[in-house]
């Protein structure tokens, strides 16, 4: 099951959890110093290592050479959070190995030789890590990872040294945001070695009140401790948002959420900005008990992104895209 379809722990506020492990192969230069031949060799090595393993997860991964992926699909993959924007920014030889549900993706030839990424819905850092760790062991049995006793796993950027592990949790924080707590949140989060940034928006402004927290420190902290810290911090933010929601159960809030539902059930033209703003209110309305839980707001948020629409409907004009988006939303809300 994909990370954006279904019900997951703390799903009223936590959208997703992502684990990323950075690994490099000893004796090879880091990707920005590699030539095309070395890159092709690297892709082949990783492909072979996973293909020769008997593990069922490894067997299920599909190898995709990025040059065989059309441009719109590459951007649609970014919108589904499968690959990073950096990964498609240039055209060097790169590949991914991806699971059928797209929750597991091994990127080959990004900033590091290998980046193991596992996505899961809701707040499930341990579960995501378990899968990432299994793949790490599997690859590590076949490939000599660059490792130093002092510095841990060696990475192209010193900011990823040590465990090479980045945990990111995406949270929906509309009331924390409207109560102007985001600045305070950024401060308290940075004190414990994390960063916070707005998702889908420009700079720090979040388009749908979606914020992502990620650990900054990767060296000197074990994986277990980091998972513990991430969970504790996320739960702290969840509790704060839940308290704000309880304290703000007013007709005004109900009105705002139900109006959003009203607009999206009737509109014929919806831009992606408007969609994000209104889906955010619908999601809030669901957790307040104003709207049915069955509306798949996160799925709609992902499937309504520009390249996801283009992927389904082919190359269309921006206005036609807004029509397709409005239809997608109307149909999803009509049956409720």
């Amino acid at each position, binding site marked *: 099951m994909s990370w954006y379809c279904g019900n997951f722990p703390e799903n009223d506020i936590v959208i997703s959890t992502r684990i990323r492990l950075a690994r*490099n192969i*000893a*004796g*090879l*230069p*880091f990707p*920005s*110093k590699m030539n095309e031949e070395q890159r092709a060799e690297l892709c082949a090595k990783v492909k072979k290592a996973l293909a020769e393993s008997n593990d069922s997860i490894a067997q299920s991964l599909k190898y995709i050479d990025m040059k065989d992926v059309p441009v719109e699909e590459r951007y649609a993959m970014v919108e589904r959070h499968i690959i990073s924007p950096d990964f498609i920014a240039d055209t060097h030889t790169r590949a991914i190995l991806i699971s059928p549900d797209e929750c597991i993706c091994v990127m080959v030839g990004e900033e590091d030789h290998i980046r193991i990424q596992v996505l899961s819905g809701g707040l499930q850092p341990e579960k995501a890590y378990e899968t990432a*760790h299994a793949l*790490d*062991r599997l690859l*590590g*049995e*076949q*490939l*000599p*990872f*660059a*490792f*130093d*006793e*002092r*510095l*841990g*796993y*060696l*990475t*192209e*950027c*010193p*900011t990823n*040294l*040590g*465990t090479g*592990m980045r945990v990111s949790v995406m949270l929906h924080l509309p009331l924390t945001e409207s109560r102007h707590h985001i600045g305070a949140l950024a401060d308290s989060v940075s004190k414990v070695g994390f960063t916070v940034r707005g998702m889908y928006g420009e700079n720090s402004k979040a388009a749908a009140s979606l914020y992502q927290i990620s650990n*900054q*420190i*990767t*060296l*000197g*902290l*074990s*994986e277990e*401790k980091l998972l513990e810290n991430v969970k504790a911090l996320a739960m702290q933010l969840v509790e704060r948002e839940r308290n704000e929601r309880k304290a703000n159960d007013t007709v005004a809030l109900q009105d705002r959420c139900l109006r959003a539902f009203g607009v999206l059930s009737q509109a014929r033209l919806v831009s992606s900005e408007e969609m994000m703003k209104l889906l955010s209110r619908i999601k809030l309305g669901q957790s307040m008990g104003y709207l049915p839980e069955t509306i798949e707001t996160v799925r709609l948020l992902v499937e309504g992104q520009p390249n996801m629409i283009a992927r389904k409907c082919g190359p269309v004009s921006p206005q036609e895209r807004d029509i397709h988006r409005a239809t997608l939303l109307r149909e999803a809300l009509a049956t409720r």
Partner: protein
Amino acid sequence: MLCENCGKRNATTHIRLVVNGTVREQNLCHECARAAGYEHPSADPLDNLLSSLFGESASLSRETACPQCNTTFSQISATGKVGCPECYHTFYDRLAPYIQRVHGSTHHVGSQPTKATSTPTEKVTIESLRHKLQEMIAAENYEEAARLRDEIRAMEGGTAQ
């Protein structure tokens, strides 16, 4: 006296910190002191002399490059990216203060790879020397055994973290 941080090497740097009126003293080895940011990467006096004679270019042309990938430290500090795993060994002393600032640590805690990796040469050599030492003792060749023992000690001293 042994370093109070790693407990492995001799303490060569005495640090006296005054925090809120309380004096804290610490004895650290050269590497730990450097990692904690107490020492600047030592300026080579010859470098200074040359650069004062020829300007910047003299010191640049003498800059060490990574034996594996040819990256220099100025390239790393300009891009924030390291050339290859070997660069971390080549430029460890100069990277350590930066790493310390980013992570608040220079000592990895956590999982280790299953397979032998970038530093196998040193380990294999010590291992093989130990093996040879056992052989020499068994063969009662004590002169050679003593030489091997000293060699192992020297290597352990030089490669221990």
